[in-house]
């Protein structure tokens, strides 16, 4: 494995893990706060138990998210020193604000986790809400920094020099809104389906049904709302990508030849040599219509991009298909969930309904990873789109593959331990919270 590939793999691995930990870390507090609110309002013990159980999950994920985030702030330099040397002063603004948001989150979490029965109950609840709000703020800021890499602004690039730096303009680069919106909704959908799926499994096993039903309902509502909003934000994102990164859009769609009446390609296997896609479903004119609003208008294909500036087509295309496919699936399950909540409430106890949600447990996170792959692989060969190549940014230190093996071992172990811990938390629910069901109907 050469150093460049090792550095890219290590970065992909670190971000791939961090994105899961941080999505859960920023969304779970909202679930927790809703459950806490319901407990304060109704006095139903189930909600209190759910809140306490979830807050332990939040603590675990916050800690893993915080350490993996700390590691990333160093890894940027360890792996991409040339990038950081030039980009640091330009796109550093969101990171400095994120430091504040993250700090407040840590303080609020201290109040929340250790403040049970010690403070005014609404103040205590409010600190939980603050954990969520600052978590989302951190997420938005970090994504704003990433979107700067996709749509760099706030400086002039003249003869290899980065001049006239404007950090505020760099932070509010053109891509920040669409990318942050898409990521936030994705975090809610992914975490919502993951949490709902786990509690659905426990309901199916008839364990502490009151507890798990309360948990299921809160997380499923978040999941369903997010699943319905996500296609809209995806549409905003795709239109922006078409404008700012035509090469990425062309790779996502495996769209080789610039043309009018461009079809939307669903699935299929791209053949980069012959420049065609086999076995795909093609909806004539739909891509042109989606991007430009007019099926007769042209969409830039890979033929307009220099070969040395093209991203890997197959990976980007497959990742995009997986993301969209799972997004559609989650929306469909969401529709069934809505029907159950509003009309056929008996479904909530039927095995087929619970199994549907159990099946969807990993869907959101697979979609998040796929979407992340689209953003990052689709930007290649650039680390700063159109300005700096990833290959020029890598550290001169040799032997990066050993660092990659080390990080892989650590992150894999860490993930196994986190899953193991969550399993034990869930196993312990009957022991810790096994009181007579106060209100089994809920």
């Amino acid at each position, binding site marked *: 494995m050469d150093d460049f590939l090792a550095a890219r793999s290590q970065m992909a691995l670190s971000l791939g893990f961090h994105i899961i930990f941080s999505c859960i870390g920023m969304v779970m507090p909202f679930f927790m706060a809703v459950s806490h609110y319901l407990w304060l309002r109704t006095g139903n013990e189930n909600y209190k138990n759910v809140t306490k159980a979830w807050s*332990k999950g939040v*603590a*675990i994920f*916050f*800690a*893993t998210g*915080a*350490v*993996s*985030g*700390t590691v990333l*702030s*160093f*890894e*940027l*330099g*360890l792996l991409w*020193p*040339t990038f*950081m*040397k030039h980009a*640091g*002063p*330009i796109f*550093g*603004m969101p*990171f*400095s*604000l*994120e*430091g*504040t948001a*993250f*700090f*407040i989150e*840590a*303080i609020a979490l*201290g*109040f929340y*986790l*250790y*403040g049970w029965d*010690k*403070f005014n109950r609404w103040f205590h609840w409010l600190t939980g809400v603050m954990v969520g709000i600052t978590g989302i703020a951190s997420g938005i800021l970090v994504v704003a920094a990433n979107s700067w890499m996709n749509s760099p602004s706030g400086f002039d690039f003249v003869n290899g020099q980065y001049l006239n*730096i*404007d*950090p*505020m303009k760099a932070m509010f680069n053109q891509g920040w809104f669409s990318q942050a919106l898409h990521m936030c909704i994705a975090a809610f959908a992914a975490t919502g389906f993951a949490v709902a799926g786990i509690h659905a499994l426990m309901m199916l096993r008839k364990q502490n049904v009151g507890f798990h039903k309360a948990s299921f309902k809160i997380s499923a509502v978040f999941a369903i709302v997010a699943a319905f909003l996500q296609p809209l934000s995806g549409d905003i994102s795709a239109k922006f990508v078409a404008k700012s990164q035509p090469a990425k859009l062309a790779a996502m769609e495996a769209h080789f030849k610039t043309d009018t009446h461009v079809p939307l390609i669903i699935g299929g296997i791209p053949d980069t040599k012959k420049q065609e896609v086999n076995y795909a479903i093609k909806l004539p004119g739909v891509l042109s219509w989606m991007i430009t609003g007019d099926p007769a208008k042209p969409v830039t294909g890979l033929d307009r991009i220099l070969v040395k500036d093209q991203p890997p087509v197959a990976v980007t295309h497959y990742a995009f298909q997986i993301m969209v496919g799972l997004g559609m699936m989650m929306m469909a399950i969401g529709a069934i969930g809505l029907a159950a909540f509003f009309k056929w409430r008996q479904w909530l106890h039927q095995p087929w309904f619970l199994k549907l949600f159990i099946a969807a447990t990993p869907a959101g996170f697979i979609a998040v990873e796929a979407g992340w792959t689209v953003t990052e692989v689709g930007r290649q060969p650039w680390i700063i789109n159109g300005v700096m190549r990833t290959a020029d940014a890598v*550290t001169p*230190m*040799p032997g990066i593959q050993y660092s990659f093996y*080390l990080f892989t071992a*650590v992150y894999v172990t*860490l993930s196994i*331990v986190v899953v193991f*811990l969550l399993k*034990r*938390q869930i*196993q*312990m629910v009957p022991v810790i919270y096994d009181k007579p069901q106060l209100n089994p109907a809920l």
Partner: protein
Amino acid sequence: MMLYIVIAFLWWSILLYLLMGGADYGAGILELLTREGNRAGLKKTAYRAIGPIWEANHMWLIIAVVIIFVGFPDVYSLVSVHLHIPLTIMLMGIIARGTAFTFRNYDAVHDSWHRLYDRIYMYSSFITPMFLGIIAATAISGRIDTDATDFPSGYILNWFNWFPLSVGLFTVCLCGSLAAIFLAGEVPGSDEKWRFIRKAKQMNGLATLFMVLLFVSASLQGIPLFRWLFGNVISLIADVIAAASLAMTWYMIYQSRVKTSRFYAGLMVMSLLISVSYPHFPNIVLLKNGGSLSILDHAAPSATINALGIALLAGSVFILPALVYLIWSFAKKRSVVDEDH
């Protein structure tokens, strides 16, 4: 002007990380040096005292790193390249410690797994400050070789030598003694209190030993440490304050005013940091070829420094009151509990 504000924030973040993060690591170091039978009590005390603020304690490192990579990108990228290996080991320590601390407090089942978490927690509490010390010492030891042509002299020998290693060990003992002094004020029972005070004494003794080693290795390697620490008025004054604070710390401990002794312990660390950092200013990294990176000359463009300074000032308006309230309210709640016993 804004540049100096940013530098001040950087310096304070490092100090606060050394004090608060240091006491955190110290709790793990003490646990490592405690007999197995007594560990449970220590663990409980440390968790009760540090639990609510431990996440916040480690934010200071993030603030410091962000200031360096946004404000001083040349320093960040040079150190990242040449100290890749110790930085990676430190990161492993940070991952291991942060997760083990959380796991051992939040694992719902209490079984033999906890022995593993405890072990990881203790060793990583030792390794992380050790390597932080190594990294800081290497930066000022003038051994970073930007012209190196072979792997060992470019990436290993700069940090793997006696001076950084003894600074690392000194840092570990400093953290351990901070934790012992802090925790001694957190326990009501006098038996346990004196156990912490004994630990603080041991840590102080070891720190003195490593300080001797540190001076010897510095002089053998031609590092003018003596001149840095005693060759200018500011450092000299800081040294005197540090020595006096150390004496006051122990005086207060024997007067049974353990909480007051914390203040002097903190003042001692602060004076030490002034004494070491002042003689280099504005240089932050010294190179083998005689060159150096000045924090004034290698700052980011002024637009960035201004934005960073404003962000830090605005951030501290939110962070500091909240942090003070967090520490104060839990300290108050703990003392209420203590009186109940």
